[in-house]
């Protein structure tokens, strides 16, 4: 009962946050200089043409009025029409979302694998030179953001040792049999491993760039948490039972050390998703972020609005999910 209550409370604050985001974006982009309508029309357009289009997009009304119209549309699932492509915003955004989601999740998986491996190795080899090296590596990886890692990866594996693709999502000449935009997932489901490999090879560099800082955070937090856990009596007790150090770390310490790491990783994952904006630009990857930057450059107000809201929904959704997972995984909370 208490659990349900706290979930409902979290949902309410999430909604307030989203409303706040909507209001701020809406008003910020109304101040954008430069007339988007004028940019759409051919050079010889008349004043009347401009006025007609302005009315069509509702831009002649007052800003609060525009907001109400927009909001009532959103409630019905209508996020307006993109000014540049003249397609519904929702449709455009949803067509790009899978690319960004696949990239983010791939990056998260890479970060967990690298970070987890580093934390476990560092714990297993406590006090050794390897642990010191891992600490220094973590420090470096944390100090430098994904944007710079992306550039370094481009240089290293795009130019110096050109083994990975550094732009695009898939080799353009390949015929794509997909019915959804989840290319990576669908190619796997259709057992088209040739395509999967091509897509994964395109995705790997941007995903790695996004993953490096998160991997360092996971490594650092998990190692710290493991270290604290390794001092506890139940770990010592397991050692005296005849278990190996590796078993003790993996089976006794890890399950308890993961929990405190989880919430922090959740917040960091939202930072990772935020990072896709510039990383997609850097690697010419056709996802939401790349579309967002184009939308800003083209002054496509309804599209910008839709994308920012979608990002906010993802961010708050991830945080909500993490909180729920935490509650579900912690036996102390579950049985309380």
């Amino acid at each position: 009962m208490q659990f349900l209550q706290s979930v409902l409370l979290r949902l309410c604050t999430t909604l307030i946050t989203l409303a706040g985001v909507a209001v701020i974006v809406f008003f910020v982009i109304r101040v954008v200089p430069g007339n988007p309508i004028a940019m759409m029309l051919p050079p010889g357009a008349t004043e009347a043409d401009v006025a007609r289009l302005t009315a069509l997009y509702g831009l002649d009304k007052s800003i609060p009025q525009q907001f109400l119209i927009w909001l009532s549309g959103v409630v019905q699932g209508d996020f307006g029409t993109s000014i540049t492509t003249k397609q519904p915003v929702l449709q455009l955004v949803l067509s790009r979302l899978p690319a960004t989601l696949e990239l983010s999740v791939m990056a998260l998986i890479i970060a967990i694998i690298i970070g987890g491996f580093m934390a476990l190795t560092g714990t297993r080899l406590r006090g050794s030179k390897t642990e010191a090296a891992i600490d220094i590596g973590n420090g470096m990886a944390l100090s430098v953001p994904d944007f710079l890692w992306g550039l370094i990866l481009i240089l290293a594996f795009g130019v110096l040792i050109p083994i990975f693709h550094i732009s695009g999502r898939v080799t353009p000449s390949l015929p794509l049999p997909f019915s959804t935009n989840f290319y990576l997932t669908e190619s796997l489901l259709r057992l088209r491993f040739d395509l999967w490999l091509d897509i994964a090879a395109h995705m790997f560099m941007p995903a790695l760039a996004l993953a490096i800082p998160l991997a360092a955070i996971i490594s650092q937090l998990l190692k710290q948490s493991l270290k604290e856990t390794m001092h506890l009596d139940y770990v010592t007790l397991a050692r005296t039972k005849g278990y190996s150090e590796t078993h003790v770390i993996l089976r006794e310490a890890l399950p308890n050390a993961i929990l405190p790491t989880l919430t922090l990783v959740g917040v960091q994952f939202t930072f990772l998703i935020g990072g896709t904006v510039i990383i997609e630009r850097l690697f010419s990857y056709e996802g939401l972020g790349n579309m967002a930057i184009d939308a800003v450059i083209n002054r496509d107000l309804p599209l910008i609005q839709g994308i920012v809201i979608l990002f906010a929904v993802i961010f708050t959704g991830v945080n909500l999910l993490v909180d729920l997972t935490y509650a579900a995984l912690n036996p102390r909370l579950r049985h309380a």
Partner: protein
Amino acid sequence: MSYLSIRNLSARLKGRPDQILRRVSLEVAAGEVRGLVGESGAGKSMIGKAILGTLPQSVEITGGQIILDGTDLLALPAAQRRTLIGAKCALIPQDPLTALNPSRRIGPQITNRLVDILHWSRADAEKRARDLLAEVQIPDPERVMRSYPHELSGGMRQRILIASAFAAEPKLIIADEPTTALDVTVQKQILKLIAAMQARHGTALLFVTHDLGVVSKVCQSLSVLYAGYVLEDSTIPEFFHAPKHPYSRALLAATPKYTDPDGSLTPVSDAVIAATRAEVEAADRSAHV
């Protein structure tokens, strides 16, 4: 022939000259209960950890032997040593609140050694766990085995840890201040339980404590430790009637007696401590010549 025999065991903090253990020798015969007494920091817990192979990484053993049932543990490769200890020794830890894994149910925490290390069948191991829980007077063992640690009281958890220590019928149990973290009211019951279990199973027990009162009730012999150095090795009657070392006498005078709880207490005097320290240092010097 002693079951456990420690000979000239020395240990220190890595890269530092300060000794934590100084040529410690002690014997525990099969079925014997030996107390290991000393103030905090005397190194008594370190001896237990050295036997079980759970010394902190910052501590290194610099010499000596730990002979368990005829095998020198320190000469064994790590993996072999672990399995040997897992089969023949067990630990009753100090703090029952942190000695059970919070994310696992009680049942597997008792049976895992039997199944994973000693290769019992799961059914046998579970039956054994139920029997032991009943033996340590835990009502409804079935339910307790399905519980998580946080659902049980401190006294219950210590009973479970005692049951778990006896699970594989070890020949030697090391009890590391097993009652210190408990309520005074529970302490006595737990002490009785350990004594009863020990008597019934005939297990040798190395009882690490700072409490001479506890030693007088449970142990047959004791070693007094100061600054990692064994000052005295006596049977219980010997010690309580005629302690050999001045420090032991002072320690005894500083301990409340169960027979006379209101009798006056004398704290260990600075003079005795200084003399003892001088003796330990002198012994160190002569050992290094």
